[in-house]
């Protein structure tokens, strides 16, 4: 009867092999399904090693598909931005063509002529401005996946964005006052950051009353450097805090101002690409808004 033992042992081994093959088949089935059409099954919720592994596999695959989805969305967003902007160029261009046609036909009093010329100038400026943003957006498209960031001196970046807005501020007698701060080296892209801060400053200059002061304050926090830009413009209502960084969003009481609803959107997009972020709040000293730009320290 001694032969029974090896036979039983072999039978047991074969059985175990069959069981494991079935379990492995389940895993390969999950992978096949996912590769075919991206679908994932329900997790089996048993307290076994296989079930846990299966949950982990499903979790990892889900992350992969979400990342793909996000990259696609980001690309689409910029592509849409580009097409929207080019579309917006059509209106002023059509106006210019029409005005020029009228002027060419002649027979207008000189007063009227001047009016049409001024209108043309206005439309041309609008186009110029749109073109500038179009260029920005297309540059962003090239770099949107990620641009290189490194530890760099904030003083220089900040100086660059201030000098970009200096003339505009001067023409409205607005002072830009930067509080002294010790050298600090956040991880960022100086070019892009200067552009993003420039956009915030541009808004501040545009909305601030003539002769007022825009204050810039830099604070080193534990994980981030915080750059605060405070103006004394009309401020942003609390209910719009969540909206103003959205593409083409224009504040409810800004309709009389020129603007595209792009500056803050681009600024936030840049900040996020740098693993930082921008928030808005009230000017603690009274009327106006306070934008805070957070850049990571490591």
């Amino acid at each position, binding site marked *: 009867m001694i032969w029974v033992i090896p036979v039983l042992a072999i039978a047991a081994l074969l059985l175990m092999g069959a069981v494991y093959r079935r379990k492995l088949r389940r895993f390969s089935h999950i992978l096949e399904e996912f590769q075919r059409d991206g679908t994932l099954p329900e997790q089996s919720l048993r307290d076994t090693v296989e079930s846990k592994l299966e949950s982990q596999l499903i979790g990892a695959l889900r992350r992969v598909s979400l990342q793909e989805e996000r990259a696609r969305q980001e690309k689409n967003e910029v592509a849409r931005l580009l097409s929207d902007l080019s579309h917006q160029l059509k209106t002023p261009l059509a106006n210019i063509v029409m005005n020029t046609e009228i002027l060419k036909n002649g027979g207008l009093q000189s007063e009227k002529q001047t009016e049409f010329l001024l209108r043309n100038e206005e439309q041309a400026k609008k186009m110029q401005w749109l073109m500038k943003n179009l260029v920005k957006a297309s540059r962003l498209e090239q770099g949107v996946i990620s641009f290189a960031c490194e530890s760099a001196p904030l003083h220089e970046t900040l100086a660059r964005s201030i000098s970009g807005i200096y003339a505009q501020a001067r023409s409205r007698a607005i002072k830009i006052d930067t509080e002294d701060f010790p050298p600090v080296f956040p991880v960022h892209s100086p070019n892009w950051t200067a552009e993003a801060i420039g956009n915030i400053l541009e808004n501040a200059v545009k909305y601030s009353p003539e002769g007022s002061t825009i204050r810039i304050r830099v604070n080193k926090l*534990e994980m981030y450097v915080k750059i605060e830009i405070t103006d004394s413009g009309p401020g942003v209502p*609390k209910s719009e805090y969540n909206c103003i960084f959205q593409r083409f969003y224009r504040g409810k009481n800004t309709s009389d101002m020129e603007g595209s609803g792009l500056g803050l959107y681009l600024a936030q997009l840049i900040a996020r690409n740098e693993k930082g972020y921008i*928030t808005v709040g009230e000017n603690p000293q009274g009327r106006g808004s306070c934008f805070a730009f957070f850049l990571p320290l490591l």
Partner: protein
Amino acid sequence: MEILKTVELKKYYGRGEAMVKALDGVSMSVQQGEFAAVVGSSGSGKSTLLHMLGGLDYPTEGQVFVDGREIFKLDETQLAIFRRRNIGFVFQNYNLVPVLNVYENIVLPVELDGEKPDRDYIEEVMQTLGIGEKRRSLPNQLSGGQQQRVAIARALAAKPAILLADEPTGNLDSRASQEVLGLLRLTGERYSQTIVMITHNEELAQLCDRIVRIEDGKIRGGGGR
């Protein structure tokens, strides 16, 4: 893709005259990868809602679907397993174990689950959250902001698909709050998570993709499709 959904969710406490309707027919939906804020004053029912989303408390009526699965149809063991594998929690009071150091606190839930922690991953999470240098410190040697960052790392340790945060900055000053929130957003993006955060502070909610407003147990805006 939708990852969280509630259908006519109700939670009543007491009965008759003394009945309190903490949630009174809440239907909302959260997309995968979204960072959603649920904003409401205290007593609005927002914490009750979060507890139901995480399967920590049973509703009086209505359903909660997580990843297409109706969680209150699961038996208790299955629900516990489901929660452990898919959902991470961050609370206002950090809930760190005082006698364990930072690293031990972070890997505790993974170890309790009988798993070996993924050291490289935990290391990276600690670096991202700026607590890498504090790994041997005890919780009481840390600032509030640091403690909450440890709590976030602990919630991330098991790589959950969903992170539920209940007033994560409730005990922090505004400076630390902004940092914690920025990091929450960053880790959500980096580790492809869906985050639902409860807060009463509108200003903090601006970092979120969407704001769901809740008042007297009912959604007042932003409930999603």
